[in-house]
Each structure stands twice: as structure tokens, then as C-alpha cells.
């Protein structure tokens, strides 16, 4: 019991510690693809360090929502990190608190507060970006739901640990059409939710074209650091769900052995490196979509998810 609690805390710490690292690798790889050198992979840590040591400026008109939001945005993905398999293939102490649907809701709360805070500050670009973010996320929502429904048809449960067991039983179920299509749909969700290129340009600093970035425009100092770190953790958590539940649930610690749990950390990071290479390839080979074409992109994701569900329901 104590071991499970300790591992759970360790899991959250690992997510917190390595999320900026993964963001750094991502940025560096993208620059390398564009034949530039790019910043060091530890640059996100330095950015966070710098921001935490700066003074914070808050608008006189801003209400308590503006002050609370960075903490909500930072903590919500950490709650999700307690529920999902990051290092171990068996449920840890807090895993009973919620299933995948619950995780989705917790992430949605963070998005909700970020939107309110963007409107709260009174900056004209904030509400514009916030409404765009809402547009993307309400289009993502049905895809999420369809993915979860299909997954629960397959596994008979929405608990991530049971789902993950279901895919590894045989290669036949791994290569089942529903599984391949679900993976595709979830990849598209990750691209949309973490603000990557066909949907949003994370490195663009032009306010009129911003989608995801605009929610942090008004923040400075500690608030900006927490928003940034929270975004990185959210990306890390989504990639963890994708890898450890849907695609490649290998390399996780199966027993409570301390060595096995610590060995799982580099293995998970290696898998994530592979996923980041795939994402960077996608990001570098596509152009950003115009705003009203995003609905087509997510419509395609929705269709992929529903086709997966149909293939599951009728064909087998």
C-alpha cells in the first residue's frame, strides 16, 4: 500500500520533471528539420526558471479568476497523471478516482478556466483567441467521446488499465481495424489539443493568428511560468495516454519492484521520443490550415472514430 502511494507520487513527479524536457526535444527537432540549430533541449527549464524569478503584473480590472487560473491549469493535468498508467501497468493508489472520461473532464476544466481568464483581463486579443480555442475544443469533444465509446466497447470498461490489457492480448486485436482507426483519430486529437501545426502554429507570435497561445498573453512572472509548464504537462499526459493505453503498452513496470519502476522511466521517455519524431514529421510536412478548415480536419477525425466504432459494432 505504501509502495503504491509512493509510486503514485513518483509518477506525478516524473510527469512534472520531464514534461519541459519533451517540449525542448520537440522544439529542437523541429528546428533541425528546418536546417537550423535550434535552442538547447533544456531551454524550457531555463525559461521556467527565468519566469519564476520575475515580478508579476496583474491588471487592476482582473478578478480572482485571473489569479486562480494558472494554478488550475497547472494542477489539472497532474490530477490526470495520477489516474493513468505512466510507469506501471497495474493501477496505483489514486487510480480508482476516475476513468478516462474523468480525465477528459479534468482537462476540460483547465481549458474552461483558461478561457475565462483570457476574457477576464480585457485584452482584445484574449477573447478572440479564447473563442477560437473553444471552437477547436468543442469540435474535439465529440471525437473524444467516440474514441472513448469505441474503447469501452472493446475493453468493456473505460478504466485505462483494463483497456491497456485488452490490446496486448494478441496481435490480431492490435491490428484490428477499429484499433488502427482509433489510433489515427486519437493522434489527430492530440495534434488539435496541443496546438500543433495543421491546427495551430505554436511558434507563431502574431496575435491575430493565435489560437492556443493567446490564453497566456496577459500573464507574466509566476503566472506565465505556471501556464507554460501546465501546457507542457498536458501535452505529456496526452502523449502518455496515447502511448501507454492505446498504442504501445510495453516497457511498463509489471511488479512493485523499485528497480522495475525506475527502469520504466527511460523506457517511457524512449517511446515518447518515437512519438515526438512522428509528430514533428507531421508538423514539418503540412501547412497550417485556415481557421474554418479546422472543422474539416476535426470532422475527418470524427469520421475516423465513428468508422472505427462501426467496424467494431457490426463486423465482429
Amino acid at each position, binding site marked *: 500500500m505504501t509502495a503504491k502511494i509512493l509510486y503514485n507520487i513518483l509518477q506525478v513527479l516524473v510527469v512534472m520533471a520531464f514534461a519541459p524536457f519533451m517540449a525542448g526535444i520537440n522544439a529542437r527537432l523541429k528546428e533541425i528539420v528546418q536546417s537550423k540549430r535550434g535552442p538547447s533541449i533544456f531551454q524550457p527549464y531555463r525559461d521556467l526558471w527565468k519566469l519564476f524569478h520575475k515580478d508579476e503584473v496583474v491588471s487592476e480590472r482582473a478578478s480572482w479568476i485571473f489569479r486562480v487560473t494558472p494554478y488550475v491549469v497547472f494542477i489539472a493535468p497532474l490530477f490526470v497523471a495520477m489516474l493513468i498508467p505512466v510507469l506501471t501497468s497495474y493501477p496505483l493508489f489514486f487510480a480508482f478516482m476516475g476513468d478516462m472520461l474523468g480525465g477528459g473532464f479534468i482537462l476540460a476544466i483547465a481549458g474552461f478556466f483558461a478561457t475565462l481568464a483570457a476574457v477576464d483581463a480585457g485584452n482584445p486579443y484574449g477573447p478572440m483567441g479564447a473563442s477560437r480555442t473553444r471552437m477547436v475544443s468543442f469540435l474535439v469533444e465529440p471525437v473524444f467521446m467516440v474514441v472513448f465509446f469505441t474503447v469501452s466497447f472493446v475493453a468493456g470498461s473505460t478504466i485505462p488499465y483494463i483497456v491497456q490489457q485488452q490490446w496486448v492480448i494478441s496481435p*490480431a486485436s492490435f*491490428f*484490428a*481495424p*477499429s484499433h*488502427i*482507426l482509433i489510433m489515427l483519430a486519437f493522434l489527430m486529437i492530440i495534434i488539435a489539443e496541443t496546438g500543433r501545426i495543421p491546427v495551430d502554429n505554436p511558434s507563431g507570435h502574431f496575435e491575430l493568428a493565435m489560437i492556443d497561445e493567446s490564453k497566456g498573453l496577459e500573464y507574466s512572472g509566476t503566472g506565465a511560468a505556471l501556464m507554460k509548464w501546465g501546457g507542457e504537462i498536458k501535452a505529456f499526459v496526452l502523449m502518455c495516454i496515447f502511448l501507454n493505453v492505446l498504442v504501445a503498452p510495453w516497457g511498463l513496470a509489471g511488479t512493485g519492484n523499485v528497480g522495475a519502476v525506475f527502469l520504466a522511466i527511460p523506457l517511457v521517455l524512449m517511446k515518447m521520443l518515437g512519438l515526438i519524431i512522428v509528430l514533428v514529421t507531421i508538423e514539418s510536412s503540412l501547412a497550417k490550415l485556415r481557421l474554418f478548415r479546422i*472543422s*474539416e480536419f476535426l*470532422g*475527418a477525425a*470524427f*469520421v*475516423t472514430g*465513428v*468508422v*472505427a466504432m*462501426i*467496424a467494431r459494432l*457490426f*463486423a*465482429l
Partner: protein
Amino acid sequence: MPHALGSSLNALVGGLFLLTSFAMVATRQVRGCLRMFIYQSILLASSAFIIGVHPVYWHLIAVGMINLLTKPILIPWILRRAMPGRIFTRREVSLTINATTSLLIALGLTVLSYFIARPLLVTAHTNFATVNLPIGIAGLLLGGYTLAVRREAVPQLLALLTMENSAFYAGIAIAPNLPIISELAVAFDALVLAFVVGLLTKLIHERTGHTEVARLTDLKEEAKQ
């Protein structure tokens, strides 16, 4: 090939086949449509191989070979020869209904096709028919829908060929013993179709400067131009 692996591979091919049909509905570029058609034909051929391998049906393997020869290679070649390159480099092709709505309608059609196929499957005696028949019907409906929604000649031709592909796709699972002469006839039919429509489109393009079928509603005399 063990039977279970065969049917799960076939199911995977079926899912991808359905996805290419959806892509034909929503893709904007002519070149993208052509590429999707090529993928779909390759998937059709691989489904024929998968079904034909375990209890060996030479017909099906022959069908797969014919398909691999004509659709991914000959038809695109004919189209590229017959049409000016400008048609393929055009970036956006207009749709009568926007892509997102089209996709949702296409989803409805797919669900409908599963309901249509369900009573028919009672008489089917192969395992493959449960995958191929509904997806084939769905492909037929989606092809018809694409035909109705598109305004350009080349995507319309491709939609027609998709319908033919889908009918074939359903057919190979239901009737694996179809005489090979009919398969050959259909394959050549598709070739001739591509050729004729290609030439026709070329002529239209030379006359009017575009290939938008929707704009061909009024006739003009040549002297007045």
C-alpha cells in the same frame, strides 16, 4: 495463411477502403482524389488476394492482378495523357455542400449501408462477406453521393470508378466463383470509360476553358464568341 489472421487482415483492409471512400468525398484537390482512387484500387486488389489465398481461388487472384494493372497504373496514365496538366494542379475544387456536412452525410450513408447489408448477410456463407458486403454498399452510396456533390468532371469520373471499385469489393466476397470472363469485361469497361470520359473532358476544356460541369448549362454558338 491461418484463417483468423486472414479475416483480421481483410477487416483492416476494409476499414482503410472505407476511409479512402470518405476521403474521396472530402478531398479538395483533383490530384488528391486521384491518389485516393489509386490507394483504393490497391486495397481492393489486396482484399482479393487475401480472400483468394486460403481456399485458393485462382479467379480472385487473377482479378487482383487485373486490378493492380489497370486501376492504379493504366487509368491514371490515361487521364494524365488525356487531360491538360492544369486540371491536376488546380488547388481547390468546389463542392456543392461543404466538406464537414458532406462527411456527416457520408457517415449517415455508411450506417444506412450496414442496416441494408444486415438482412443480406444471413444468406452469406463466407466470413469475409460480413466485412466486404456492407463496406462495398457504403462505397457505392458514397461514390454516388460524391458524383452528385462534385462539380468538376474529373472528380466525377473518379467517383464513378469508385462506385465500380466498391461493387467489385462487395462482389469478390459474395461470389468468389464468378467466371473470369466477366471480370475481364468489367476491367476493360472501366478502362474504356476512363478513356471516353477523359477525351470528352479534354474537348470540353478546350472549348470552354474549364471543366466545371455545373457551368455548362447554356450553349453558346461559336460565331458569337
